[in-house]
C-alpha cells in the first residue's frame, strides 16, 4: 500500500496542503492533474526527494516520512528518464544490485531477465546518447525495477513518446499491473493512460486530491 496522509509541501510561492490518497497493495494507482498542479511534487515527496512541511507517508506497514530515499525500497522513474550518461544500459540495470553487494553471476542473471522483459537485450552495451526516447524509458523502468522493489513511482513516463512507442510501453506497464507484485503510483495528465492502466484513479485539482 502507498498511503499519503495529510501531506503538505511548500516551495516558494507554490504550496500543497493536506493531500491524502491511498493505493492498495498490488494495485495500480494513477494520479491525474493539469501541468503545474503539483503531481511531480507529490511523487518526489513519496520518494524522499522533496522536503515536506507536514503529513505522513506510509509504504505498506512502514512509515517512511523521514527515511532516506534509498531506505524506502521503492523504484522511481522520472519524466525524462534521467539516465546516467556515462554508463551502459547493462550498468544501469546492474547499478542497484552492485550497490547491494550482489554477486556478479546473480547480477548477470537479473540483467538478462530484465532485458528480455523490456526487449532491450540488443542495447545492453549502448550508452544513453545512442538510445531513442522509448528505449531510454524502458531502461529507466528496468533500472527502477532491478532490485525488485515492492513500490514503483512513475512520473509521466509516456508523455514524451510517439504513438507507437507509447503503445508498446503501455503494454509493458499493463503487464506490470496484471502481475500485481508491485504497488504503483503513476502520475499523468492523460485520461486515456489512466483509463487503460488504473485500478484506482485520483485527480489533483486546485490543490485537492479527489478519488474518481
Amino acid at each position, binding site marked *: 500500500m502507498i498511503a499519503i496522509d495529510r501531506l503538505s509541501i511548500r516551495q516558494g510561492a507554490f504550496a500543497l496542503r493536506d493531500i491524502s490518497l491511498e493505493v492498495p497493495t498490488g494495485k495500480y494507482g494513477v494520479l491525474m492533474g493539469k501541468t503545474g498542479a503539483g503531481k511531480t511534487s507529490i511523487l*518526489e515527496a513519496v*520518494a*524522499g*526527494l522533496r522536503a515536506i512541511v507536514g503529513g505522513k507517508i506510509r509504504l505498506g506497514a512502514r512509515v517512511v516520512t523521514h527515511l*532516506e*530515499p*534509498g531506505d*524506502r525500497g*521503492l*523504484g*522511481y522513474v*522520472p519524466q*525524462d528518464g*534521467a*539516465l*546516467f*550518461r*556515462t*554508463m551502459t544500459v547493462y550498468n544501469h540495470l546492474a*547499478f*542497484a544490485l552492485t*550497490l*547491494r*553487494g550482489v554477486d556478479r553471476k546473480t547480477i548477470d542473471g537479473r540483467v538478462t531477465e530484465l532485458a528480455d522483459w523490456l526487449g532491450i537485450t540488443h542495447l545492453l552495451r549502448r550508452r544513453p546518447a545512442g538510445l531513442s526516447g522509448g528505449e531510454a524509458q524502458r531502461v*529507466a523502468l528496468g*533500472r*527502477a525495477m*532491478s*532490485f525488485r522493489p515492492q513500490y514503483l513511482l512513475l512520473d509521466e513516463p509516456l508523455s514524451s513518446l510517439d504513438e507507437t512507442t507509447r503503445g508498446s510501453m503501455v503494454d509493458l506497464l499493463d503487464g506490470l499491473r496484471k502481475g500485481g507484485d508491485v504497488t504503483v503510483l503513476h502520475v499523468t495528465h492523460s485520461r486515456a493512460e489512466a483509463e487503460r492502466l488504473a485500478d484506482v484513479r485520483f485527480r489533483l485539482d486546485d490543490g485537492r486530491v479527489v478519488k474518481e
Partner: protein
Amino acid sequence: MTAAGSTARFYLALALIGGSYVVLILAMLIADLFYTTEDAFWAAFRSPEIRYAIRLSLVSCFVTTLLSLWVAVPLGYLLSRTRFYGQTVLDTFLDIPIVLPPLVIGLSLLILLQTRPGKWIEDLTQHQMGFLLTYIALPVVIAIGSWPLLRRLPSRAEGLLYLPVVAAVVAIVLRFSGLGASIEPRLQDRFGTRITFEIPSVILAQFAVSCAFAVRTMRVTFDQISPRAEQVALTLGCTRSQAFWAVSLPEAWRGLVTAASIAWARALGEFGPILIFSGATRMRTEVLSTTVWLELSVGHLEAAIAVSLLMVVVAIVVLLLMRGFGLRGGAM
C-alpha cells in the same frame, strides 16, 4: 538569395570576425620565431638554469592543478547544488583572485605569512615537516592505500572507522618500532623548508589565482548537469557521496578536464605573485615566466624570446595531452 548562400555568408562573417584574433596570435608567434634564432633557442634549452626553470614549472603547475581541482570540485558542486545564506558574498569573494592585479595577490600572500598564524605555519613546515610526514601523512597514505584490501565499496560507517583506525595503528607501529625515528630525520632534511621565497611559495602563489578559475569552471559544469540523475541514484540505494562519485563526477568529466587545463595554463603564465612572494632566485624559485623577466632585465632579448617560445611549446604539448587523454576518458 538561396538558403545555402545565406548560411555560407553568415558563417563567413563569423569566421572573419573570429579569425582576426587567430591571425593576431599566429602573427605574434611568427614574429617571435623570426626575432630569435635556432641557436638561441637550443642554447636556452641547454642552459642548466633554464632546464631547472622548466622542471620547476612543470612540477609546480602539476601540483597546483591537483590542488585546484581538489578544492574546485567540492566548492563548485556546493555552489551549484545548494542555496545558502551569504552565497552571493561567497561568490564575490571567489572572484577576487580573478579581478585583483596579480601583484596584489603576491603582496597579500607575503603579508599573510608575516602574521602570527602565518609564522607558526612557516615554522611548522621548516622544523616539523619530518614529524608531520612520518606520523600523519605516511599513516594516512598507507591507510588509503590498503583500502582496496576490503575488495568492495565500503559503507559509510566502515569508511569513517577504517581510515582513522588503520592510520593510528600505523603511526603507533612507526613510533614504537624505531622505524619512524630513522625515517623522520631523512624526511625533515629532504622536505623541511620555509614557505616564503622557497618552492612552496611558488605553488601557493600559482594556486591562489588558478583555483579561482577552476572553481568557476566546475560550478558552470555542475550547473549544466541535471540533479535528477543523482536523485534517481539516491532512490536506488546510494548515499549522497556515492551518488556524487558514481553519477555526477563521471558526468562532470569534461568540465574537470577543462578546469584542469585552465588551472594548469593559468599557473604556467603566473608571474606577478611569484615575483613578489617567491622572488626570482636562479636554481631555486625560478619558473619559466620569471626566466623571461630575468633574461629581459639583463638585456638578453633573444634568450627571453627563446624561453617564451619554449613556454608556448610546453603549453601546447601539455594541454593537448591533457585534453586528448581527458576527453577520451570522458567517452567511457
